[in-house]
């Protein structure tokens, strides 16, 4: 940035990606619309650290691709017209079909204030429970498990416990990639305390195993057997905490009995989970022997048809030992989204009502109705996500308003979701991005403010509420979500209840509701931030991160809950849940013999609408891929880096084959991120079975029977272009944004008549002066390569071949950084190889400093480097976010 710092303002905000909830210091230049992002050293979630995604936030604030004006039936409209149409359509639908014919589908990306207003509108005034959110896909099993065990949706512990623990168990969590900053914190804790043991329980050998003392690659879906086995093991008189069980819990004996029946001997458990019996024994032994045990879990636990049972099976083991709510111990759900927790607090799930009250108790319904001053409050839960889109598909829900999420990609059986939205009478989408797979299906598009413009609060995994603050003034006509909802609510006749002028006002009301009749007589609720009910605008503006509850008893917040043994069940005791292990609903068979697992990548977020804007985040894993065990690859005749079709009963996708024994035999892994905007056939949601957990209604995204076969196009290729191109023909097409270029990975089933014409049509749709072409063609092996050069500057490149053996992209892409093409480079261009003497850095390992694999290998060899630290000192690789350290270790 320029020297004149006076023009910059410094803003403290939070990262909009995962649930770690890192604090950010943003140095904002309003004039150039640029921002420099650094970690906030004083934020308790990250103490200055940021991961690759967070570090690259500055690259995602560009206005290109933003939705900046309301659109109504495909044309631009004024806010007035769009809001009138939304309000009128909702009213007429409700009049005709009743309140349950409308729905809101929100997102863990919404801020608490947005969420609160949306929930209030639907449940409080429209009077339907049909407000659900994409948190259903990631958190609802945890919510349900918490409520069953604790009577409340409470995360008992905090991040500080990582440093105090003696044993940390990571269950169904690729923490290294999905919660990188928490992972770095655990890694640092282990380095500081070599006694700290780490166990990773995951069918895949992910990079998280890098810090593991023990990896248990259990059979997919066998978690409940494993933890029932542990409960059975801990049930021995000398290992259980009898005093705790008696004083603070209930249901122990039935749970233990169920555990004993299902698990039997350790050998039996090992066999069912397909684990080495000694490893299993060691894990049980470690768990029993260490008082300070933390069980961190994430989507591998939650996204299952027995997700809630898995959560409770884990919690049971903490209850039997009394290890909960005290320093260094307890179950800990790593939330996926920045404000999934905030959404839960306002009642964003369709079975929740508000402020940790739900539809189970009439008292609660009356109470919330009273607080809101509504007579039309909903009295029963609405449709949870998967059922909601089924209901839309079946015509039961006629109008839906989707906010800040992309269900046409992310939901199971996503092709059906697309159809449902295509047939829906009225689809409203509020989003900050213009073109997504979901906005394409909307009748009304409402431009919401993006992360860099929004203002409000979020809650992270450890119940810590932080302020997200606007960096820039709103772009174009973009408005805050709370404002949009409020405007619609007012037009629907609810002016009085939706009088908000700013987020502080909403936050005060939310805080007030959390404390409303929250007492021993009328029923205590865990979520209570009543201390903020009268917060001033200035206090709200200066809000510092704090862990709820924040009330008269805990004015400074509370790091740990349940340390006093008081739970929020009717009896005040924690409940053991008897778990009968269930297999995943759809099992592999002869036709679909493999199991598809899905998950996140290190450098991408959700459906990539923002992370894919940051070129450096597209380097790590540029294309949709499928991980296959070597034996499966042989059996299904798949070769490395070729393409494969993966098919389930619900849909299919095409991905690049990566053969690795970190994947179990019989199971495949695909990343969850790619959409129709970036990949022609990369949407994994289309395959995922629409099966949900009976309690939490969370879909089973980690287990779908599939088959795989080689996809054999006639040609393969790639294009690099300075400008964005409009390529549609090839059957396989992936678009990747790079540093000053766009990369397109291609494969096709038919050959064009003439590659030269094809290239000119696709790379050069508008003729330019001084345009020059360099071409290479081999008729025998169907090789065609061309470079389009304008004013001696590289404009685009196309490489086509009969198979996947095309040159590395790394050197070629680096040429787009040059204003002029060097003569030597030009001569080498179509070889794809740098002229002699120019090093080829190879695939990028460290996205932060753009350090390639070959550079690292050379440095290791030539400088005799032995540790990742030495590599870091020499090349800087791995010294920023640290998430590539496992890969550097692998190179060492």
């Amino acid at each position: 940035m320029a020297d004149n710092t006076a023009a910059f303002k410094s803003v403290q905000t939070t990262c909009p990606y995962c649930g770690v909830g890192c604090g950010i210091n943003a140095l904002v230049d309003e004039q150039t619309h640029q921002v420099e992002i650094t970690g906030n050293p004083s934020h308790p979630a990250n103490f200055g650290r940021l991961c690759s995604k967070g570090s690259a936030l500055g690259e995602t604030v560009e206005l290109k691709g933003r939705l900046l004006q309301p659109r109504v039936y495909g044309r631009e409209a004024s806010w007035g017209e769009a809001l009138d149409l939304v309000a009128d359509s909702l009213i007429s639908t409700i009049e005709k079909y009743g309140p349950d014919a409308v729905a809101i589908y929100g997102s863990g990306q919404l801020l608490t204030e947005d969420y609160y207003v949306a929930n209030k509108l639907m449940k409080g005034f429209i009077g339907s429970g049909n407000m659900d959110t994409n948190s259903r896909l990631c958190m609802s099993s945890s919510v349900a498990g918490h409520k069953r065990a604790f009577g409340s949706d409470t995360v008992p512990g905090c991040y500080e416990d990582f440093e105090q623990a003696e044993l940390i168990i990571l269950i169904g969590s690729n923490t290294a990639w999905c919660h990188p900053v928490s992972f770095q914190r655990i890694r640092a804790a282990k380095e500081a305390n070599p006694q700290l043991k780490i166990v990773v329980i995951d069918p895949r050998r992910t990079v998280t195993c890098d810090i593991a003392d023990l990896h248990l690659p259990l059979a997919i879906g066998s978690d409940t057997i494993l933890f029932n086995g542990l409960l059975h093991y801990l049930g021995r008189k000398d290992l259980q905490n009898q005093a705790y069980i008696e004083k603070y819990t209930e249901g122990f004996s039935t749970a233990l009995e169920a555990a004993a029946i299902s698990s039997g001997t350790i050998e039996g458990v090992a066999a069912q989970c397909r684990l080495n019996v000694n490893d299993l024994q060691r894990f049980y032994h470690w768990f029993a022997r260490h008082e300070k045990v933390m069980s961190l879990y994430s989507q591998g636990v939650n996204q299952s048809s027995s997700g809630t049972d898995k959560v409770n099976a884990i919690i049971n083991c903490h209850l039997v030992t009394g290890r909960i709510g005290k320093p260094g111990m307890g179950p800990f759900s790593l939330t996926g989204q920045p404000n999934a927790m905030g959404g839960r607090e306002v009642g964003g799930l369709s079975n929740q009502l508000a402020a940790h009250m739900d539809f189970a108790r009439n008292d609660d319904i009356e109470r919330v109705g009273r607080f809101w001053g509504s007579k039309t409050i909903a009295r029963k839960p609405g449709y949870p996500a998967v059922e909601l889109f089924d209901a839309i598909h079946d015509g039961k829900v006629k109008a839906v308003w989707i906010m800040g999420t992309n269900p046409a990609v992310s939901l199971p059986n996503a092709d059906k979701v697309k159809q449902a939205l295509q047939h829906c009478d009225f689809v409203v989408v509020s989003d900050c991005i213009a073109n997504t797979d979901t906005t394409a299906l909307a009748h009304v598009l409402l431009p919401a403010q993006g992360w860099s413009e929004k203002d409000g609060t979020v809650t992270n995994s450890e119940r810590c509420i932080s302020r997200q603050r606007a960096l820039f003034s709103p772009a174009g006509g973009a408005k805050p979500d709370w404002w949009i909802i409020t405007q619609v609510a007012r037009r629907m006749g609810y002016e009085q209840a939706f009088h908000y002028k700013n987020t502080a006002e909403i936050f005060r009301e939310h805080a007030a509701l959390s404390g409303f009749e929250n007492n021993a007589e009328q029923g205590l609720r865990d979520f209570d931030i009543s201390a903020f009910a009268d917060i001033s605008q200035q206090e709200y503006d200066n809000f510092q991160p704090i862990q709820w509850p924040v009330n008269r008893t805990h004015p400074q917040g509370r790091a740990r809950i349940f340390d006093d043994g008081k739970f929020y069940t009717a009896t005040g005791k924690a409940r053991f849940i008897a778990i009968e292990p269930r297999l995943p609903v759809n099992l592999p068979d002869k036709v679909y013999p493999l199991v598809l697992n899905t998950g996140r990548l290190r450098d991408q977020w959700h459906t990539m609408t923002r992370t894919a804007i940051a070129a450096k985040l597209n380097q790590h894993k540029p294309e949709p891929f499928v991980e296959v065990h070597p034996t499966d690859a042989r059996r299904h005749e798949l070769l490395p880096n070729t393409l494969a079709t993966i098919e389930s009963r619900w849909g299919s996708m095409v991905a690049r084959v990566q053969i690795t024994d970190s994947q179990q035999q019989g199971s495949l892994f695909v990343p969850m991120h790619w959409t129709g905007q970036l990949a022609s056939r990369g949407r994994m949601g289309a395959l995922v079975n629409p099966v949900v957990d009976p309690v939490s209604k969370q879909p089973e995204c980690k287990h779908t029977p599939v088959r795989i076969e080689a996809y054999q196009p006639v040609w393969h290729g790639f294009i690099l272009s300075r400008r964005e191109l409009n390529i549609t023909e090839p059957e396989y097409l992936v678009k990747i944004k790079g540093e000053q270029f766009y990369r397109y990975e291609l494969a096709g089933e038919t050959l064009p008549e003439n590659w030269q014409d094809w290239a000119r049509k696709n790379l050069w749709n508008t003729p330019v002066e001084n345009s020059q072409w360099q071409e290479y063609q081999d008729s025998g092996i169907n090789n065609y390569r061309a470079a389009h050069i304008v004013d001696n500057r590289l404009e685009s490149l196309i490489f086509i071949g009969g198979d996947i053996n095309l040159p590395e992209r790394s050197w070629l892409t680096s040429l787009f950084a040059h204003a002029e093409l060097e003569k030597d480079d030009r001569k080498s261009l179509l070889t794809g190889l740098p002229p002699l003497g120019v090093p080829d850095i190879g695939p990028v390992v460290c996205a932060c400093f753009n350090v390639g694999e070959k550079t690292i290998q050379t440095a290791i060899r030539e400088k005799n480097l032995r540790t990742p630290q030495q590599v870091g000192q020499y090349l800087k690789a791995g010294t920023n976010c640290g998430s590539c350290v496992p890969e550097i270790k692998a190179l060492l």
Partner: protein
Amino acid sequence: MTVNNIKVDRMKRRLVVIGNGMAGMRTVEEVLSAAPDKYDITVFGAEPYGNYNRIMLSSVLCGDKTIEDIVMNDRQWYADNGISLHAGADKAVVRIERRARKVYALDGTCAEYDRLLIATGSKPVIAPIPGNDLEGVISFRDILDVNKMLAYSRQHKKAVVLGGGLLGLEAANGLVLRGMDVTVIHNSEVLLNRQMDRKAGKMLQTALEQRGLKFRMAATSQCLMGDEKGHITAVRFEDGSELECDLFVMAIGVRPNISLAQEAGLYCERGIVVNDTLQSYDPAIYAVGECIQHRGDTFGLVAPLFEQAKVCANHLSAHGVAEYSTLPAATKLKVTGINLFSVGDFLGDESCEAVHFTDPSMGIYKKLIIRDNKLMGAVLYGDTADGMWYQELLEKKKNISDIRDVLIFGQAYLTAAEAA
């Protein structure tokens, strides 16, 4: 016997060479190195010089080199090596008496041989059109021709070169550099159509046009017209148009110079027919160079001549192990700043696959012809750095399937493993 200045050694056999050109003298050099004491050597040459590098004549024409520069062996060399040289127009051999094993020059000089080497080269083809005997109509074959062209260029303005082959283009380029207004008449639409494909030919034409050469492509000249002094004034084309000129250079090819051999009753077809040891039908007579016909081929480029010289010398030296076989010869055009190269079958047929590389603005065009994963031919224009490598791949018939991706880009892009 007029061979009196050299002491005849009874032990030595006698080798007589007819033709003091590149093929003959290379053979002599090879013999001298392989069997220095085997022969008394006598050389007859119709040009009054030592031995010079004929392919450098165009460099002399354009002024890059002088005659002295291109002399390979001066008279002193012959003396130093004990070779008796008879050079000059009157020393042209006119008769071979095979039974007596004697040769006679125009002036009656006679030499006896045990082995005779015929290296009479070739003669320019003269277009059979009216007026081809006019003053100012010449060919481009020897130093005399070069001197004539230089003389014309000093006094006259307009020149026409008939033939857009290598020699014609080199002559035309030289004359342009000497200040003449030169038009090349070519019967094909493509320059160097024996060595280049259409695309390379067109690029070459553009490059030459930028140097001031003019072209009449796909044109047939009907007759040459002269003035009353019998000097050429213009060429008339079949379409009736005319082009003025003061100098008319014929460069439409050569044919083997075999009249002497034919008269001696040696078996000839288009050339003197030789076997794989370069021996003619008369076991005492060998022949090398542009005058021979070997397995149906005649020759016009220097590389096979040198190979023939090596094989022939091997047999003359009685080592008797070498066999000549014709390898694809590469072509280069000696026009400064224009790089082109072609080798082998560069057009190919249906059984062949073509690899192209083009960068018109860089002036680069390359084409490789491949059949059964073997390189069959190559045309390079603008970037000829890898010509020799392609020629080697072609000669060795190497399987190129592993390096096919980088083949056209050049040897530099081979990894160490591939190069092995």
